[in-house]
């Protein structure tokens, strides 16, 4: 493709490459979903059909490396990078183990040149990588896996709960999925760093976002930017008529939902985020005017806090669809979120005891303190300015917390399923 001077040939190769990537993705991940959906649609018209289903295991991380592969092809097609002619280097780019199964979805422009550089041992870099890995493990095994016990208990038996437990499980899931996925990203970025490879950031404290659009610049950044560069902008982005622009947003988010999983719950989750974004864009002036009238502009910290809270609530409503086992479960939760509210948790079984709850909440508070430091002065700067004794105590504390409070029950990373 890169050698061809003929635009048509280039395009043909691009289409061939995209089709083979998307074809594999479709066959393994979406075939049964579409087949089942067709059957259900036809059954509405009393047309019985026993559709073909493939009994194949979903290759772990297929969505991640299929997208990474496609970004390479598109970048070569666009002339942003030269084609990689060394099969080993290209295979390494697709299957670089730290980020193979759950990202960050890297770009050839960032990753390929690093594989060609000779690497030297760098103590500082290795230590920074190890620190990041330790922080990732803390988020994964101490917070996410302990939260999973409560979330799974409630979300797998939603019919048994109303009110507070449903709210608790939903908020807990927000932290679980963040700690699970960002924890994995930290481990991946940290382990790559130890080997001298810099991977892109994937999360920037997303729950501190003041709007949905800001959230999507802080959450799963490698995927959001992929969709921006390879789908949203080619669709015309915001340089088209307003209705078309809004449609572009919706389409990108629906496809993003579908990328996460072959289920209508993910499609609705994606669509819901698209709708949020559309409403946000359409009401921007109105909201700005209202804030000015109420006087919120004069108290910027309160204004920020309100916006962060509203964004967090909206994101949580989306997570209900993301986590629910079925659409009916999701609607049950939405319907019963505020019914039969009782503050007496002692009579409700949420799958864990008080000591585990204390550990979970303390860990989340610790994480948020770190986030606040990161947001303001940067954790590396904060830590490196402390005496050796303080730094080492902090590192030992994190390792001990992981060993003591980690849930070592082999819970897989949530994003491995995608």
């Amino acid at each position: 493709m890169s050698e061809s001077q003929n635009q048509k040939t280039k395009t043909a190769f691009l289409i061939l490459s995209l089709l083979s990537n998307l074809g594999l993705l479709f066959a393994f991940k979406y075939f049964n979903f579409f087949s089942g959906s067709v059957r259900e649609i036809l059954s509405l018209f009393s047309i019985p059909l026993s559709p073909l289903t493939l009994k194949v295991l979903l290759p772990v991380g297929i969505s991640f490396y299929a997208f990474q592969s496609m970004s390479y092809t598109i970048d070569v097609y666009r002339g942003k990078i030269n084609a990689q002619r060394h099969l080993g280097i290209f295979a390494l780019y697709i299957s670089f183990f730290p980020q193979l199964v759950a990202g960050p979805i890297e770009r050839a422009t960032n990753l390929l040149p690093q594989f060609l550089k000779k690497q030297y041992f760098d103590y500082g870099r290795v230590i920074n990588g190890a620190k990041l890995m330790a922080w990732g493990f803390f988020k994964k095994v101490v917070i996410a896996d302990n939260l999973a016990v409560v979330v799974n208990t409630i979300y797998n038996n939603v019919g048994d709960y109303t009110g507070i437990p449903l709210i608790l499980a939903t908020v807990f899931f927000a932290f679980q999925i963040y700690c699970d996925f960002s924890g994995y990203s930290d481990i991946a970025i940290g382990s790559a760093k130890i080997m001298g490879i810099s991977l892109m950031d994937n999360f920037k404290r997303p729950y501190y976002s003041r709007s949905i659009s800001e959230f999507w610049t802080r959450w799963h950044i490698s995927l959001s930017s992929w969709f921006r560069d390879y789908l949203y902008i080619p669709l015309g982005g915001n340089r088209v008529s307003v209705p078309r622009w809004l449609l572009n947003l919706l389409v990108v988010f629906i496809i993003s939902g579908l990328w996460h999983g072959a289920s209508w719950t993910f499609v609705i989750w994606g669509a819901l985020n698209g709708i949020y974004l559309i409403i946000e864009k359409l009401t921007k002036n109105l909201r700005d005017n209202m804030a000015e009238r109420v006087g919120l502009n004069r108290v910027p910290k309160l204004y920020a806090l309100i916006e962060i809270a509203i964004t967090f609530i909206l994101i949580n409503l989306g997570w209900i669809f993301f986590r629910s086992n079925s659409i009916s479960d999701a609607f049950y939760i939405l319907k019963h979120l505020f019914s039969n509210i009782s503050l007496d948790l002692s009579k409700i079984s949420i799958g864990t005891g008080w000591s585990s709850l204390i550990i979970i909440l303390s860990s989340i508070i610790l994480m948020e303190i770190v986030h606040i430091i990161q947001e303001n002065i940067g954790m590396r700067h904060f830590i490196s300015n402390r005496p050796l004794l303080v730094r080492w105590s902090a590192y030992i504390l994190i390792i001990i917390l992981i060993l003591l409070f980690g849930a070592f029950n082999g819970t897989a990373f949530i994003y491995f399923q995608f």
Partner: protein
Amino acid sequence: MTFVKKIIIFLSILLVVITFINIAYIKFIQPQKIVERRWVSYKNLITSMEEPAIDFIFFGDSHIEGGINPLYIDGNSFNFAIGGESYTETYYLLKRLVEDNNVKFNNIILQLDLHTFSESVRGGKFLFDQIYFYSKFVDIKKMAELKGESLVSVFLRTKFPFLGNGKHFLDSILKLDDLTSMYLGWSNHHKTAYHIDNRQEAAAEAFEHYFPKDSAIIDKDTFEYFLDTLELTKENNINVIFLKYPISKEYYLEIDKNVDINNYYNDIFTEVNKVLDDYVVLDLHDYFFDKGEYYYDPEHLIVDGAEILSKKINEELQKLNKEN
């Protein structure tokens, strides 16, 4: 300081901290666990006897653990049952007990219920939940093999029991630990019957738990250990009494709807007969069929129920003694 020195010093400090926490866990937290307290209770009983002999020793899971109180059993008895115990664990525990040559065991009462060999609750991954306790007398390699876990994982969990168990420190500090009182191995803190509007639904849920689809009713490995346990009793001249534990009528009927109960027991006793020449079966499945008030769920008895059952079992055991 060179980086090698730094790393060595850091790892040394970390190792010291880990060792300190591990020792603290083994010394202060582990002894509070029910398996350890039961062992201490048994040892105390044995050392209090001039010629140690146990007339009736009970094995099984939570049914027996909370259902049979040695207080009401005439003669020296001890309840070694514990929640979730399978015959794999029973075999190793009994093997350990009979290794103490100075103790004589006369009768062993073994639980034989419909869920006793269920793969879904007794399969490999559920084994040796109290892994540190069992590691004192079961080979680590064997445990890893039976559990289907890596040797490294089992090794770490047996040598460093604090791993992932920090909440027990917190339980202890906040006095949240479950220090249910125990009498010769019996422990039961359920004093009130269950108040479930739909007991049928509760029974169906219990059935789902023990007999899910695509799960074997008789797990082969567990059954092998059951037969090994019987061999062990034979080698040590211990009389075997099988106990079919009382369950609620709703739960029994739920099982009966889905499982051929007669066939299940026939299959088991065909194999038992190949090992044992003589044994007794106490069938009390229906003992509390019309006494729902004695259950705190479809298959576990409350304290009052346990008292009545223990007295009934005592009656049966004394009758057997007289017959012999």
